[in-house]
């Protein structure tokens, strides 16, 4: 495999989406856990753990969209119409969630309403993202560089299952994050969720893999054909190892380990997804080369990314460092 511009761009966008899953996952997960935690001050603490970083996390979604648009306009212009209504619903969910995040702290009379907006917004955005991923995995019908499928092609048992799966995934991440960032009673109750939720996550990853293999011979061929099987065999084993690790440390004082292992599971699952798709960008027919923008566009854009991406990564890491440590109720807060 030679390294050419489209491959580099596929790598950059994969990295962007991965960082989005890694960072916004736990932060949407907090919205999903919200309905079950409402003792005195708990919700404030949960929000405060992500208050300084959530909008930075979401910026990766904007960057991913812009890069896809600029580097692979054909993928952008076929994928989005194919998942039209889920995309619109996801954006509305993110709007509600983002605004609720900020206004909730200043509202008294209408606080319940903003809580509801936060929960529903997080849930809608997550479920729709899962459905979009599921639809992409299943493949989108493209004729002559245009989307040619059904208006409701995104609605299938598989895509709905992926939506539900992502809800569990993000909630699990949120749980791991909160075990790391809180203490006391809230942490104790979050800790109780660690084991069952990671088992559920394992089951979902297993089911989605099985479903993909059985439903799509082309993907099965990719996974098991030739030498690939040897390279990819460690992936499920590593996932299992991570779950074992979560069980091992769930009740220990190493508060960060469960969360880190969960993020590792996300990385492994995401690599499985990439293997299923690459070198296509919109399965089953559109490859990264066919979807590419002209060379002059990809080069021009690459300049910007090469200079700015390291700076952005540095800034993001810095912001996590500045706000490290436990968040407690009544802290001179972020709100």
């Amino acid at each position, binding site marked *: 495999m030679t390294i050419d511009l489209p491959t580099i761009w596929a790598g950059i966008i994969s990295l962007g989406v991965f960082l989005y899953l890694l960072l916004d996952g736990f932060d949407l997960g907090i919205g999903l856990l919200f309905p079950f935690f409402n003792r005195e001050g708990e919700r404030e603490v949960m929000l405060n753990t992500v208050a300084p970083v959530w909008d930075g996390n979401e910026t990766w979604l904007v960057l991913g969209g812009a890069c896809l648009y600029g580097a692979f306009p054909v993928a952008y*212009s076929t994928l*989005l119409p194919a998942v039209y209504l889920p995309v619109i619903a996801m954006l509305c969910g993110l709007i509600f969630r983002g605004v609720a995040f900020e206004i909730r702290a200043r509202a008294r009379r209408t606080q319940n309403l903003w809580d509801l907006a936060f929960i529903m917004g997080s849930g809608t955005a997550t479920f729709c993202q899962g459905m979009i991923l599921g639809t992409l995995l299943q493949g989108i019908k493209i004729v002559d560089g245009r*989307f040619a499928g059904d*208006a409701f092609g995104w609605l299938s048992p598989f895509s709905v299952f992926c939506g539900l799966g992502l809800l569990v995934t993000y909630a699990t991440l949120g749980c791991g994050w909160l075990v790391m960032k809180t203490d006391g009673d809230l942490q104790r109750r979050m800790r109780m969720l660690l084991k069952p939720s990671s088992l559920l996550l394992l089951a979902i990853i297993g089911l989605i893999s099985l479903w993909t293999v059985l439903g799509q011979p082309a993907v099965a061929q990719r996974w098991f054909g030739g030498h690939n099987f040897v390279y990819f065999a460690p992936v499920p084993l590593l996932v299992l190892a991570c779950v074992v690790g979560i069980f091992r440390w769930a009740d220990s004082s190493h508060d960060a380990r469960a969360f880190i292992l969960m993020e590792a599971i996300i990385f492994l699952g995401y690599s499985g997804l990439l293997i299923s798709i690459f070198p296509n960008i919109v399965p089953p027919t559109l490859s990264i080369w066919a979807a590419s923008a002209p060379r002059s566009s990809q080069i021009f854009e690459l300049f*910007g990314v090469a200079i700015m991406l390291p700076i952005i990564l540095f800034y993001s890491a810095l912001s996590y460092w500045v706000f490290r440590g436990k968040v407690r109720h009544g802290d001179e807060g972020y709100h």
Partner: protein
Amino acid sequence: MLETSDVLVLARLQFAFTISAHIIFPAISIGLANYLAVLEGLWLATGKLVYRELYFFWSQIFAVGFGMGVVSGVVMSYEFGANWAGFSRIAGSVNGPLLTYEVLTAFFLESGFLGIMLFGWKRVGARLHFLATILVALGTLFSAFWILASNSWMQTPQGFQIVDGRVVPLDWLKIVFNPSFPFRLVHMSLAAFIVAATIVAGCAAWHLLKGRRGEGITKSFSMAVGMILVTAPIQMIAGDAHGLNTLEHQPAKIAAIEGLWETEKGSTSLNLVGWPDMRQERTKYALSVPHLGSLILTHTWSGEIRGLKEFAPEDRPDSTIVFWSFRIMVGMGLLMLLLGVIGLVLRLRNKLYDTRWFQRFALMMGPSGLIALLAGWITTEVGRQPWVVYGVLRTADAASPLSSQQVGTSLLIIIIVYFLVFGSGVYYMLKLMAKGPEAGDQAADERGDVGTGSQRFGNRPMSHATDPIDE
């Protein structure tokens, strides 16, 4: 065929609605961010507390507007692909990279320094804080730079080649610095400053009318009215130059703006008012002044301007809309100029803070900057029709292969969500303005912590203010 045109109309309505709702907030952000930089600079230079008080007050309103601009902007970046797949496929090679540059250079600069700007008073020194404010203000301008480069390229495209029906960029310098870009950048930046000035003047006028005479209120009234006096005439000159540029590159747009159907020989008159009728191909009830068209549009006594009939009917923009949107913009500009001049006269007579009818006028003019801005954008965008990339790609060929049910449903959802969410946001901003700069400062004085960080202001942009918003 009916189906296709329905989808097109719905998609255009949706774009018009989402972009109009969006542009309000970045315009406020650009204007206020720069106002805040000026305030902080003045505070550092003079040491007068009133500037810091005003900085705190307006930074709360800025923070809300900024947040609203971010969330409404995310929608825009995905709408290009969802509703305008044809546009993305054919011209995404130009617009995509420009948007990516906006995210990389502006969004991250803003989010990087917004935190320090809003909450960093205790954590960093005064100079570094000032630097953060300047960088955020620069970030808003960078953002305008890239998005206007993208929009201007769609108006006056160059530096590319069409290969296999798709745009292939050849020269990025030519693409970014296309003929209409410098004019649009100047016109829009000034417009954003004017938006902030009219809002600040309107807010101060409201408090003056309530009988409040605190230094923060009189100072901001004086600054804003002065700013309008300076910027309104400059904006007119910039707008005039922009118009000459449009006449050169998009003559059909100018003809539509003026409701001009025939190419008048010898000289061109100007329709002051009238009702352009696209079907009858004439401007009804026109009240026109001879030679004025030539004078304004070509800066000569007898310049000729090509009428709409010289363009094929399918290449004409809707004259009824742009004729009036343009006149609303110009009308607002003239009223602003009047406001500035009366302000000057009253100031010279020492009556600036004691003339109630002038304060009522300034209050009514509060939204005039935004109205002019929206009317101006409607003029330039509707005037570009029926093209999405002028002369290259028709809007009808830019839409996505969607059903009208899909686009109609999303339009409905978006309208409801926007009214709920951005309605709350605007309500919140107005509530903050109604409190006025004095209130926050007095409370802080009592606690002895004037202008300190997180205790007073919280640590997040939109939860930056102190009081509940729903009581």
